[in-house]
């Protein structure tokens, strides 16, 4: 085991980033065009990074699996984006946003990163407004704010229930402007297969062209991975169907450390599963908890319709247990409490695996029109999926996998343990600790892309020399052959089971044993089951068609093959972390009131895993120091 160094700059927390920016080396404007940067992924992090780097003068090539960069899954983020503007004059500040985020992450994030994120938050809002992002406004023409979980101030900027869409389209428009100017080359329908390493530096990528099936190689001086999270390891999640871990997993297998894989966020307010046909789960934004009240019947097994259950027989359990934060407790807390109610047999709906989110009080207080203005699109979406009208009857919700705090380990400069490989957005592990607060993912993705990487990448390029392109091409060719072999191997199995079935089975194992609450025996069971399923995949998966064409089954199979390896690492990480923190809840470590019990003496660190060959891993740690926010038990009571 080695101790990792996060390379946090010296100085007082509020000065670290400014000092660091000054000390970092710059690349002369005339030299920037000599460097080529490869950006993988076009979500908030990827698009904003590519646009900003191209504006500075670098040559950029950007890749996405969708048919257009505008479809990356950031587009589906609903509720909003946090910033410490304090426009509502309600006591917010950079320090408070920093404090709330460290506490919300259950003291498992790197303080200096979080402080920088809070500092940058305000610039993000300025940048997005300047691009024409149509945030919600007050009648006076100024920006409106709302509240999100884990905060007692209103600091969330929003565009109805589709903030992610508007922010992504802003970043996409900045990206397309650079495409038009010839500074960015865009490659859509490409999936990254491997990283090209030369002299230990990340110098290129191998992609599969999803239309022709051809392997292509691209080379440059640095690679930025902005490929999102790995929630689809659970099969059912709020992620898009194509969201996957493969790019991150392939670089992990080529040497980059993977940090805290067990930190997954189960979002409390999703539309419950309706049957076996289900292909994905749909989130109902956390913002709904501003006005919706969560409840279940007091009585076990109550089968009455919600209207027939009188006030006195309802248990508004979040308001009861957490009077000061009420329905706006952080996600991990709200999810666990919903699970406890269902375990107590007080769940509602046809499957009894859901709780109510009720707007009748808010509709009575504010009127239907106001509620419609605030949440109209979410209510419509709910009605389309369930066939029920939430203006008339309470929504039914249940937790679902939503976000992964874990990801590739990066230092303060967002560089992984592989030189020249930077990781941005959800794909890295950096800022959210063991639990992400609502409206912080958009903030982090854009902070990384617009305001951090333009500085830290320059410093890397200015400090390193790069071998000639010819040598890179040789290695790229080898890697290309390996990728082709992998595709052939999967195609040649010619078994009997469709990939989807195996993926669904993996999801069931993960949800059961590595889901909302975990224990030692369950995790050990998962560690037995996952390799078995992996063997089954490699001996019995069936993929029709050929490799040199658009073949959706090959795409899915390659992704599931990587999920089957990641799943094992997640279970191992969860087993090793003998404490409960944030989204990682170990049943052995809880209070009598079922609150999480951290073990700061042994686990106040980041676990970063090194790949050591088939089934072999080594755990390294980065010690976390809390100099600003004192380690304390999180309380929202």
């Amino acid at each position: 085991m080695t101790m990792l160094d996060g390379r946090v700059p010296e100085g007082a927390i509020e000065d670290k980033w400014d000092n660091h920016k000054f000390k970092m080396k710059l690349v002369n404007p005339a030299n920037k065009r000599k460097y080529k940067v490869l950006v993988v992924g076009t979500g908030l992090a990827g698009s904003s990074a590519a646009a900003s780097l191209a504006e500075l003068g670098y040559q950029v090539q950007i890749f996405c699996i969708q048919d257009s960069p505008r479809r990356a899954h950031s587009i589906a983020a609903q509720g909003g984006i946090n910033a410490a503007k304090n426009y509502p004059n309600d006591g917010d500040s950079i320090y408070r946003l920093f404090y709330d985020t460290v506490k919300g992450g259950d003291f498992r994030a790197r303080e200096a990163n979080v402080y920088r994120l809070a500092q940058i938050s305000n610039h993000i809002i300025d940048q997005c407004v300047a691009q024409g992002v149509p945030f919600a406004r007050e009648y006076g023409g100024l920006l409106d704010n709302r509240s999100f979980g884990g905060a007692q101030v209103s600091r969330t900027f929003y565009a109805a229930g589709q903030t992610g869409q508007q922010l992504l389209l802003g970043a996409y428009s900045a990206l397309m402007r650079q495409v038009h100017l010839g500074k960015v080359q865009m490659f859509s329908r490409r999936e990254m297969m491997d990283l090209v390493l030369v002299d230990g530096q990340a110098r290129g990528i191998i992609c599969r062209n999803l239309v022709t099936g051809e392997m292509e190689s691209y080379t440059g001086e640095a690679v930025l991975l902005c490929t999102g999270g790995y929630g689809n390891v659970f099969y059912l999640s709020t992620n898009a169907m194509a969201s996957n871990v493969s790019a991150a997993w392939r670089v992990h297998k080529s040497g980059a450390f993977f940090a805290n894989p067990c930190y997954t966020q189960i979002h409390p307010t999703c539309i419950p599963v309706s049957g076996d046909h289900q292909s994905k789960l749909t989130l109902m934004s956390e913002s709904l908890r501003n006005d919706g009240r969560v409840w279940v019947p007091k009585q076990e097994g109550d089968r009455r319709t919600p209207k027939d259950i009188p006030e006195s027989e309802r248990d508004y359990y979040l308001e009861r247990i957490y009077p000061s934060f009420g329905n706006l407790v952080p996600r991990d807390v709200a999810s666990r409490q919903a699970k406890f109610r269902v375990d107590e047999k007080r769940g509602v709906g046809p499957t009894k695996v859901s709780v109510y989110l009720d707007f009748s009080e808010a509709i009575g207080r504010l009127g239907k029109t106001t509620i419609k203005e605030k949440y109209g699109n979410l209510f419509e979406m709910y009605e389309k999926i369930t066939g029920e009208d939430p203006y008339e009857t309470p929504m039914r919700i249940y937790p679902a996998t939503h976000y992964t705090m874990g990801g590739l380990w990066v230092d303060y400069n967002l560089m992984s343990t592989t030189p020249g490989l930077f990781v941005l957005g959800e794909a890295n592990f950096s800022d959210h600790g063991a639990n992400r607060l609502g409206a912080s993912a958009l903030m982090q993705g854009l902070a990384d892309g617009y305001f951090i990487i333009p500085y830290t990448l320059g410093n890397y390029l200015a400090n390193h020399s790069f071998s000639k392109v010819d040598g890179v091409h040789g290695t790229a060719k080898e890697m290309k052959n390996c990728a082709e072999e992998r595709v052939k191997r999967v195609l040649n199995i010619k078994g009997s089971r469709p990939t989807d079935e195996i993926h669904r089975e993996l999801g069931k194992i993960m949800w059961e044993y590595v889901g909302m609450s975990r224990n030692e025996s369950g995790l050990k069971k998962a560690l037995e089951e996952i390799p078995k399923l992996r063997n089954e995949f490699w001996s019995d998966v069936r993929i029709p068609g050929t490799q040199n064409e658009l073949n959706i089954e090959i795409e899915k199979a390659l992704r599931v093959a990587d999920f089957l390896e990641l799943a094992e690492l997640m279970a191992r990480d969860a087993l090793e972390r003998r404490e409960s923190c944030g989204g990682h809840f170990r049943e052995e470590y809880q209070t009598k009131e079922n609150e999480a019990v951290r073990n700061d003496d042994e686990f106040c660190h980041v676990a970063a895993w090194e790949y050591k060959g088939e089934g072999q891993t080594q755990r390294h740690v980065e010690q976390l120091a809390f100099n600003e926010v004192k380690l304390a038990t999180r309380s929202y009571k």
Partner: protein
Amino acid sequence: MNLTLRVWRQRNGQDQGHFEEYLAKDVSPDCSFLEMLDIVNIGLVKEGKEPIAFDHDCREGICGACSMVINGAPHGPEQLTTTCQLHMRHFQDGDRIVIEPFRAKAFPVLRDLVVDRSAFDEVTAAGGYVSVNTGSAQDANAIPVPKGDADLAFQAATCIGCGACVAACKNASASLFVAAKVSHLAYLPQGRVERVRRVFAMVNKMDELGFGNCSNTGACEASCPKGIRLDFIAKMSREYMRSSFCGCGR
């Protein structure tokens, strides 16, 4: 419920393409249309046949990836609904459903129901942005925007770029798509600086890429899953006229 599907199959851009029939058995009314296709595809894979390729991603009606014509209507029979949000409870047992790709000269078929919509990216690249570099923005509240304008801009900006408007139009015009972006930015003070150049650049690019002209039949509005209104095409035309008169954009 049991359904008969008549689906367009086309191996690649060069292939002629043809319809094939499939049975979808024991479909739950709670399934989405795409989940129904998933079930059919799993059956096909088990039989060793190639599954039906279609674009899809978020399955929440926001990414704009899903693109197919169901019984003659882009995204199917329900108003204001993308294919992924269309649920089988809107069909009857025994229904026969015809499924085709979006058809337009500017959207060539890649395989089965998958079409190439990168022309939309090209139109956006021509001018669908405010030219502001990262880092040069003023404080967000320094530019007040009347709520009415902000709301209109937002409505226009909710376009998901799916291309249903093009598929529905007898001329395969992209006017609704282009108008949504032109209007979004023209309603905001941030976007007004470049309004003249933008409307020319985007409209000209649309013509160049083989999209047809608008003849105001309104089929686009009727099939738009996000309710983007025809008014925005009028707004785009006004922007175009205005820019022609002021003579500074050519």
